[in-house]
C-alpha cells in the first residue's frame, strides 16, 4: 500500500468503526447464533436459547479485546481507539484539558526559546565552509583575543599549523554615497580574510592578499549581502561604484554571499574594507605599533592533520621567539585556541554559562510543569477510580487502562508541545530581526532549525510520559470490588502522598525562579544607583570623529577645541569636556606603566596596567567626577610643557601608597616618557559594572592627541532642546562632519547595562512563569482538597465550626506544603545566586530586601491561589450538602 492510501485508511479507521472490528463482531455473533440453534434444537425457547448461548460464551468484551490483541498489527488500531477515547474524555473536561495544555505550552515554549538561542550561539557551527577547523588565537593567561598587527604578521608568516591566518578590526566610519551622510560600522580585514574563510562572492569580486601594496593602497569595499539588499536595493550596478568613506574615495568591489556576515555571530558589519587602509578609516594607523594590540581577532583554518595541541605548541614557540626579539613590547606570549564565533572565551564563556543557566532554569520550569500536571493527573485518576474499577470489572486489562492513561498524557503533551513550539518560533523570529542597541551593529540570528523542533517535541513526549507515570501506582492498586461497593475513598491521612511531594517540589522550583529573578532585579537597580565615578544625568554625549570629517594631524586638536568652545557657548550648557572613549563604553584602552625608578621597561616589570583615557581639561567638570587632590588639567598642559596626568585613587594607592604622596610624583609609560601626577580623582567604573576597582590615568589631549572624541555636554535643558541646538552649532562649524548623539543614560543602558538588563528580563520572565505555575499548582491542590471534603466541611459547619477552623481544615495542608516548598526553594535559590554574580552587579544572596521580597511574593502567590477555594469552603451550606447526600 502506498503512503497516501495508507494514511487514508488510517483516517477512515480513526473516524469509522473499522472493517476488522465489524468482521469480528459478526463472527462472534455468528458463533452465539449457532450455539443458540443447537440449544433450541434441544428444546429451549429461542429467546432463552440465545440468552444461554451468550452466558456460555463468557465475557464478550474480554474475548473481543483479546482477539484484537491476537490479531496483532492492530497497535495502531488500539492507539486510535485510545486516542478517540482520550479526545472524548478530554472534551468532557475542557477546563482540565485547557489548563494542562497551556501549562505545558508555556513550559515547552520557554525551553524551545532558550534552546533556540543556545543552539544558534553555541551549538550551531559558523556559517562558513569547514567551520570545524576554524580557530581564533587567544593570548596569555587572560585569554585576550586582541593582538598587534606586527605580531599578527609574525604569527601568520612563521607558523606551520594554519593554512593561513587572517585578522580584522572594527571601526566606525562616515559614509557618503553622494545622496546622504551616515555613520557605518566597518570591519577592517586583512586582504586574505575571505580566502581564509573560504567564501565566494555573490556579485563582483572580493579583495585578496595580492591587492595589498602598503598603507592606503587598497581603497576597496565589499558589501555584506544584507547591507546591499537594504541600502542598495539589490542594485547589481553597485559593483565598480565609488563612494566616499571619511571623504576618501573607495570602490565597491563586490557583494558577499547571502547569510554570510563575517565570523562573529552577534555582529553584522556594514562593510568590509582592507586593513591596510586603516589610516583613512581611523585617522591613524597602528599597523607598525607592536605594543598596540587593537587587532580584534586573528583566525584561520588548521591544516589537515594538525591537532589543536600541535598548533598551540607551534604558536608558543613563535611566542617565545617574539618575547626574546621584542622584550619591550611582547610579554606573556603564550597562546591557546578558541572558536571564532563569539569573540573569544572572555565573552563566550560567560555567555555560555549564562545560557546554560537559563537552560537549567527552563528545565526546572518544565519539571515544575510536569509536577503540576502529574498532581492534576493523580487527582483525576482518584476521581476516575470508579470508572477504572468498572472497566476492570468488565474485563479490561490493567495494561490497557494504563495505555489509555498514557495516551491521554501524551496527547496533552503533544498538543501543548506544538502550541509552545509555535509560540517560541514566533518569538525567535522576532528576536532574530531585533537590533537591541542603537549604537552598535549587534544582531543575533536565532532562527529556529530542525534541531529546535526536534528537541521541543522530544521534551514534550518525555514530559508526557513523566506526568503520565504519576497515577500508575494508583491504578495498579485499584481494587474494583472495593471501589464499586463504597465509592471513591478519600483518605485524610497525615502521611505525605506522592501528590503532596510533587506540590512541594513544584513550589520549591518556583521559589528558586522567583528568588533568582529578585536577585537579578535588585542587582540591576543597584547598578543603576551605584557610583560610576561620574554622573550620567543631564548629560548629552556627542560623538564627532574628526577623521570622518577629513581632519588629520595638527588640525585635529585645533578643531576639537573649536567644537568644545562652540558647544560651551550654547545657552543652558554648563560644561563641555571631551574624552576619547566614554567610560563604560564597549572596551577601553589600557597601557602598561612603570615605577619612576624602573629602567628595564619590559612588560614583566610593569607596575600596573591602568585604563588610559585622553581628555580635555574640562572633562571632569562636565562628567561630574570629583577631584580628590591636586589640580585639574588646563589647556596650558600642551606639547611645550612637561607631561602630566591625572590618575584615580586606585592608581595612586597602587603606585605611590596613598593619595597625598601621589600628587607631584612621577611614573613612566611604556615608551619611557616620565609623567607627573598633578591630580587625583575618585575611582570609577571603566570596562564593566561588575569590575573591581581598577587603576586609571587621564592624559591631556594636547600631549597625546587622538582623533576619537566623545563630547560630554552637561546642561540644564531637555535632551530635545539640546539636540537641536547642538546639531545647528555643529553644522555651522563643519557641515561635513557626521555627528551622533544620545543621552549618557541611554548610552549606559545600551553599552554597560545591556547584559544585566537582558539577564534581568530573561530571569524575570522565568520568575513570572514559575510564579504562574506555582499559582496553578496550589490552586489545583487547594480546590481539589476543598471539593473532596465539602461534605466533611458541611458537617463541621453544621456542628458550629468557626470560619477560621473551616479554613484550617480545608486549606491547612496546601498552605503547609506551600511554606515547606518555599523554604526549600529559597535556600536553593540563594545558593544559585553565586552563578548569577557573573552577570548581575553584586548579586548577593544576603540581601534582606531580596529575602523579604521572596517571602512576600510566595505568600502573595499562596493567597492568590487559595482565594477561590477558600471562598468556596466558607460558603458551604450544610443544609444543601446534607440534603444532596
Amino acid at each position, binding site marked *: 500500500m502506498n503512503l497516501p492510501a495508507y494514511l487514508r485508511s488510517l483516517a477512515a479507521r480513526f473516524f469509522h468503526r473499522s472493517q476488522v472490528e465489524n468482521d469480528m463482531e459478526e463472527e462472534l455473533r455468528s458463533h452465539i447464533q449457532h450455539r443458540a440453534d443447537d440449544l433450541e434444537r434441544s428444546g429451549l425457547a429461542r429467546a432463552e436459547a440465545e440468552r444461554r448461548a451468550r452466558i456460555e460464551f*463468557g465475557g464478550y468484551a474480554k474475548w473481543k479485546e483479546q482477539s484484537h490483541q491476537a490479531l496483532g498489527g492492530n497497535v495502531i488500531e488500539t492507539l486510535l481507539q485510545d486516542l478517540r477515547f482520550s479526545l472524548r474524555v478530554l472534551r468532557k473536561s475542557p477546563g482540565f484539558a485547557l489548563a494542562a495544555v497551556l501549562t505545558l505550552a508555556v513550559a515547552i515554549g520557554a525551553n524551545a526559546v532558550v534552546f533556540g538561542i543556545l543552539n544558534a550561539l553555541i551549538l550551531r557551527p559558523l556559517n562558513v565552509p569547514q567551520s570545524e577547523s576554524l580557530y581564533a588565537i587567544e593570548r596569555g593567561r587572560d585569554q585576550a583575543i586582541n593582538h598587534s598587527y606586527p605580531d599578527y604578521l609574525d604569527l601568520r608568516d612563521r607558523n606551520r599549523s594554519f593554512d593561513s591566518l587572517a585578522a580584522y578590526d572594527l571601526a566606525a566610519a562616515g559614509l557618503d554615497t553622494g545622496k546622504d551622510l551616515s555613520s557605518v560600522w566597518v570591519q577592517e580585514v586583512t586582504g586574505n580574510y575571505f580566502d581564509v574563510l573560504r567564501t565566494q562572492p555573490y556579485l563582483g569580486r572580493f579583495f585578496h592578499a595580492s591587492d595589498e601594496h602598503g598603507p592606503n593602497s587598497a581603497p576597496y569595499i565589499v558589501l555584506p549581502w544584507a547591507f546591499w539588499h537594504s541600502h542598495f536595493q539589490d542594485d547589481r550596478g553597485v559593483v565598480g561604484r565609488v563612494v566616499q568613506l571619511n571623504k576618501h574615495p573607495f570602490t565597491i568591489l563586490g557583494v558577499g554571499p547571502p547569510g554570510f556576515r563575517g565570523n562573529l555571530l552577534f555582529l553584522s558589519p556594514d562593510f568590509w574594507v582592507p586593513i591596510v587602509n586603516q589610516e583613512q578609516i581611523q585617522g591613524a594607523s597602528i599597523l607598525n605599533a607592536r605594543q598596540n594590540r587593537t587587532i580584534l581577532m586573528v583566525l584561520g583554518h588548521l591544516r589537515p592533520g594538525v591537532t589543536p595541541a600541535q598548533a598551540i605548541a607551534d604558536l608558543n614557540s613563535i611566542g617565545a621567539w617574539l618575547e626574546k626579539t621584542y622584550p619591550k613590547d611582547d610579554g606573556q606570549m603564550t597562546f591557546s585556541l578558541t572558536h571564532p564565533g563569539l569573540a573569544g572565551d572572555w565573552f563566550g564563556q560567560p555567555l555560555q554559562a549564562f545560557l546554560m543557566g537559563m537552560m537549567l532554569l527552563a528545565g526546572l520550569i518544565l519539571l515544575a510543569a510536569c509536577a503540576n500536571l502529574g498532581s492534576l493527573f493523580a487527582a483525576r485518576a482518584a476521581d476516575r477510580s470508579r470508572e477504572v474499577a468498572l472497566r476492570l470489572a468488565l474485563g479490561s486489562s490493567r495494561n490497557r487502562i494504563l495505555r489509555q492513561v498514557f495516551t491521554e498524557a501524551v496527547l496533552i503533551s503533544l498538543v501543548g508541545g506544538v502550541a509552545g513550539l509555535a509560540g517560541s518560533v514566533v518569538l525567535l523570529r522576532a528576536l532574530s530581526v531585533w537590533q537591541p542597541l542603537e549604537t552598535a551593529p549587534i544582531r543575533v540570528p536565532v532562527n529556529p532549525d530542525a534541531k529546535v523542533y526536534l528537541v521541543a517535541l522530544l521534551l514534550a513526549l518525555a514530559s508526557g510520559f513523566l506526568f503520565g507515570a504519576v497515577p500508575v501506582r494508583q491504578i495498579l492498586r485499584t481494587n474494583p470490588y472495593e471501589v464499586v461497593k463504597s465509592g471513591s475513598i478519600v483518605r485524610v491521612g497525615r502521611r505525605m502522598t506522592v501528590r503532596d511531594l510533587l506540590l512541594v517540589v513544584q513550589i520549591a522550583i518556583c521559589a528558586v525562579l522567583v528568588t533568582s529573578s529578585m536577585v537579578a532585579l535588585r542587582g540591576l537597580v543597584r547598578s543603576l544607583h551605584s557610583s560610576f565615578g561620574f554622573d550620567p544625568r543631564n548629560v548629552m554625549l556627542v560623538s564627532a570623529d574628526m577623521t570622518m570629517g577629513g581632519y588629520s594631524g595638527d588640525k585635529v586638536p585645533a578643531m576639537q577645541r573649536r567644537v568644545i568652545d562652540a558647544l560651551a557657548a550654547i545657552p543652558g550648557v554648563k560644561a563641555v569636556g571631551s574624552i576619547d572613549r566614554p567610560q563604560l563604553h564597549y572596551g577601553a584602552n589600557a597601557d602598561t606603566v612603570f615605577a619612576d625608578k624602573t629602567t628595564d621597561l619590559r612588560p614583566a616589570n610593569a607596575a600596573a596596567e591602568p585604563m588610559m583615557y585622553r581628555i580635555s581639561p574640562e572633562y571632569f567638570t562636565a562628567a561630574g567626577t570629583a577631584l580628590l587632590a591636586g589640580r585639574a588639567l588646563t589647556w596650558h598642559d600642551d606639547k611645550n610643557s612637561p607631561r602630566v596626568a591625572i590618575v584615580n585613587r586606585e592608581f595612586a594607592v597602587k603606585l605611590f601608597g596613598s593619595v597625598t604622596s601621589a600628587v607631584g610624583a612621577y611614573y613612566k609609560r611604556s615608551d619611557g616618557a616620565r609623567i607627573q601626577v598633578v591630580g587625583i580623582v575618585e575611582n570609577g567604573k571603566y570596562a564593566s559594572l561588575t569590575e573591581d576597582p581598577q587603576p586609571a590615568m587621564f592624559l591631556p589631549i594636547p600631549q597625546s592627541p587622538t582623533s576619537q572624541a566623545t563630547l560630554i555636554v552637561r546642561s540644564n535643558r531637555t535632551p530635545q532642546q539640546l539636540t537641536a541646538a547642538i546639531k545647528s552649532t555643529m553644522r555651522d562649524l563643519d557641515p561635513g562632519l557626521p555627528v551622533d548623539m544620545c543621552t549618557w543614560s541611554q548610552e549606559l543602558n545600551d553599552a554597560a547595562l545591556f547584559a544585566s538588563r537582558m539577564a534581568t528580563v530573561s530571569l524575570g520572565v522565568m520568575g513570572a512563569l514559575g510564579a504562574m505555575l506555582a499559582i496553578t499548582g496550589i490552586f489545583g491542590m487547594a480546590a481539589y482538597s476543598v471539593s473532596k471534603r465539602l461534605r466533611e466541611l458541611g458537617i463541621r459547619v453544621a456542628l458550629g465550626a468557626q470560619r477560621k477552623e473551616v479554613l484550617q481544615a480545608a486549606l491547612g495542608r496546601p498552605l503547609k506544603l506551600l511554606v515547606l516548598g518555599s523554604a526549600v526553594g529559597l535556600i536553593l535559590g540563594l545558593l544559585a545566586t553565586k552563578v548569577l554574580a557573573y552577570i548581575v552587579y553584586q548579586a548577593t544572596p544576603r540581601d534582606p530586601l531580596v529575602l523579604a521580597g521572596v517571602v512576600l511574593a510566595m505568600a502573595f502567590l499562596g493567597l492568590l491561589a487559595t482565594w477561590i477555594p477558600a471562598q468556596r469552603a466558607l460558603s458551604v451550606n450544610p443544609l444543601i450538602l446534607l440534603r444532596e447526600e
Partner: protein
Amino acid sequence: MTEQAQLLPGTLDLLILKAVSLGPLHGYGVLLRIGQISGQALLIEQGALYPALFRLVRQGLLEADWGTSENNRRAKFYELTSTGRKRLREETEGWNRLATAIASALATRPEEI
C-alpha cells in the same frame, strides 16, 4: 457428560489445527469437532477459541473465508494452510514424544531402577 479436564497451556492451538485439518470448519464447528474427537473430555471456554483462531491466522497457519453454514447462517470458515499442515505434523510429533516420555516416567516402578 463425563468429568472434563482443563487444557494444558498451548494445547488449544494444537487441537484447533487438528480439528481444522479434518476439513474446513467455522468457529463453532471447531468447538464441536474438538468435543467430538476428544470424547467431550476437554473443557474449552467458548470465547477463548477466538483469540486462538486469530492468532493462528496471523501466524499464517490458518486461512479464513466467509461462507454459509449448515444452519444456513453466514459464518467464517477456517482451513489449514501448507505451513499449518507442516506445523501440525511437527507439533504432533513433539506432543507424542512428550506424552511418551511422561507416560513412561510415570509408569516407572521401584524395582525397575
